[in-house]
């Protein structure tokens, strides 16, 4: 079976789409992550063997759950009593058993199943990078090799990191009983944060890199959450935020891999379909009149997306939204972002007035010095601007960030030369 074989492409897509639901049900059945993963692997292998011959089952997820559960039970039995496995043909004949099983998969139960599967990846003792790696391995089903490449780690190191994270989870009690409303909301919050971590791990990387693909994985996980919690405005906001940000990706880097700022981006390169979906979700969320941090950030991204050119941007609206975000989720970085909007509305002096008080908490932050430098430059305070930009270059996390500031410094020198 080759990669271009339509059978194998269809099966791969069907397996990827049903993985979270199947794995979540198997986890509930066996209450052990390794057993559930092995059962899923076995079911996927059998699907690859039997579906091209027998055709796809009516309900892919129900088939995989049934086959995976039986395979794991057979494995257990074999280990205890050396009983022979049923022949392959008998197994695929069990397709008829999928109908009653599908009926037994209660919609609300599988919702909690999937939430639990995602939630165990957000164990508070696990550092953020391990949460992300674990979710990509367990929920998205990415290979350890691919996750390792995304995080520029060796495969062995990543394998060890994931094994250690799983062991940490195994030691703690995973709550298998159905959560109450408050607990469910708490889990949803933790899971949303983890999904956004996955997204940002991808978003901070350059285009075309292995890590950039994590944005797509995060959006897939977000859509999954949204299907389970269709009336939660913050989930709508999260998915909208990711779609609206990711829509800009084709315009975010130039041919040399350097960052292109929002103002300079070719908006024709933005992905229209993602923007359309993001805007639709923002509209849906706003109807609930229950603002939250993801919704407000999505609304900010929506104002950028709606502007056909930078001059059309509703900066006053963005400034107001950042003021709301400062109230909902106060942080110096949010205040710094607000300063950008304030500068656009009220000029560089007004922006700088918001930037200066952040010097304490953001002294080690690249963007603080970058923005401060740019505003000082606009105010004609060249010496201070150069100093701030020098600090920014020293703090740049990527070559592209450093290159961008150098470009501004060059412009400053050029302008200074012209003035002489």
């Amino acid at each position, binding site marked *: 079976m080759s990669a271009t074989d339509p059978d194998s492409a269809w099966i791969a897509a069907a397996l990827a789409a049903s993985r979270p639901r199947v794995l979540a049900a198997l986890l509930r059945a066996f209450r052990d992550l390794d057993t559930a993963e092995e059962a899923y692997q076995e079911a996927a292998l059998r699907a690859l063997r039997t579906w091209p011959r027998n055709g796809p089952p009516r309900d892919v997820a129900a088939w995989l759950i049934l086959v995976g559960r039986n395979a794991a039970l057979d494995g257990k039995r074999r280990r205890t009593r050396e009983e022979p496995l049923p022949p392959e043909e008998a197994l695929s004949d069990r397709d008829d058993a999928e109908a009653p099983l599908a009926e037994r998969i209660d919609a609300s139960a599988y919702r909690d199943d999937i939430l639990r599967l995602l939630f165990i990846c957000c164990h508070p003792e696990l550092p953020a990078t391990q949460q992300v790696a674990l979710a990509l391995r367990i929920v998205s089903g990415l290979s350890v090799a691919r996750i390792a490449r995304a995080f520029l780690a060796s495969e062995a190191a990543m394998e060890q990191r994931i094994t250690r994270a799983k062991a940490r989870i195994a030691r703690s009690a995973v709550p298998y009983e159905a959560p109450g409303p408050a607990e469910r909301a708490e889990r949803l919050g933790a899971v949303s944060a983890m999904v956004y971590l996955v997204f940002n791990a991808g978003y901070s990387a350059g285009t075309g890199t292995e890590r950039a693909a994590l944005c797509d994985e995060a959006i897939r996980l977000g*859509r999954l959450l949204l299907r389970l919690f269709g009336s939660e405005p913050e989930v709508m906001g999260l998915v909208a935020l990711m779609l609206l940000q990711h829509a800009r990706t084709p315009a975010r880097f130039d041919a040399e891999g350097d960052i292109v700022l929002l103002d300079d981006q070719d908006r024709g390169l933005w992905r229209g*379909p993602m923007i359309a979906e993001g805007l*639709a*979700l923002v509209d*849906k969320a706003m109807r609930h009149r229950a603002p939250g941090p993801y919704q407000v950030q999505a609304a900010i991204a929506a104002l950028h997306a709606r502007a056909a050119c930078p001059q059309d941007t509703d900066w006053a609206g963005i400034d107001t939204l950042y003021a709301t975000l400062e109230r909902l989720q106060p942080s110096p970085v949010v205040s710094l972002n607000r300063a950008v909007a304030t500068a656009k509305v009220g000029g560089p002096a007004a922006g700088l007035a918001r930037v200066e008080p952040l010097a304490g908490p953001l002294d080690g932050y690249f963007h603080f010095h970058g923005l401060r430098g740019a505003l000082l430059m606009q105010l004609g305070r060249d010496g201070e601007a150069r100093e701030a930009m020098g600090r920014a270059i020293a703090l740049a996390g990527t070559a592209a960030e450093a290159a961008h500031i150098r470009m501004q410094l060059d412009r400053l020198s050029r302008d200074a030369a012209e003035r002489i």
Partner: protein
Amino acid sequence: MLYAILCYKDEDVVAAWSEAEDAAVMTRLGVVHETLARQGKLGPSLRLLPTTAATTLRKGGEPPLVIDGPFAETKEQLLGFYVVDVADLDEALAIARDLAAANPGGAYELRPVLLYNPDPRVAAG
């Protein structure tokens, strides 16, 4: 005789396609579209955004109830649809409410359109 051809597929599977896979499907469909358009047999066609972007107006009560998500009941059948050009969801909902007042009962699902191909027969004059 005009026929509407309604497209059904597992959206999870479609969402799992890579950009290249999606583009390949659209290219293959485009070939069929072109042939039909040349024959003067193609009317407007469109691709919808996922059901997660949908909002449903339940027409049973007064006022009609707005529900997040797609229309999920099975006791009603799809009997027709409109395409409206509006600024946002609220405007689309206002139109749906006007329609509901004229024709109570059942539901309207409001689903944003991803891709709209106008009627090539009209474009050709």
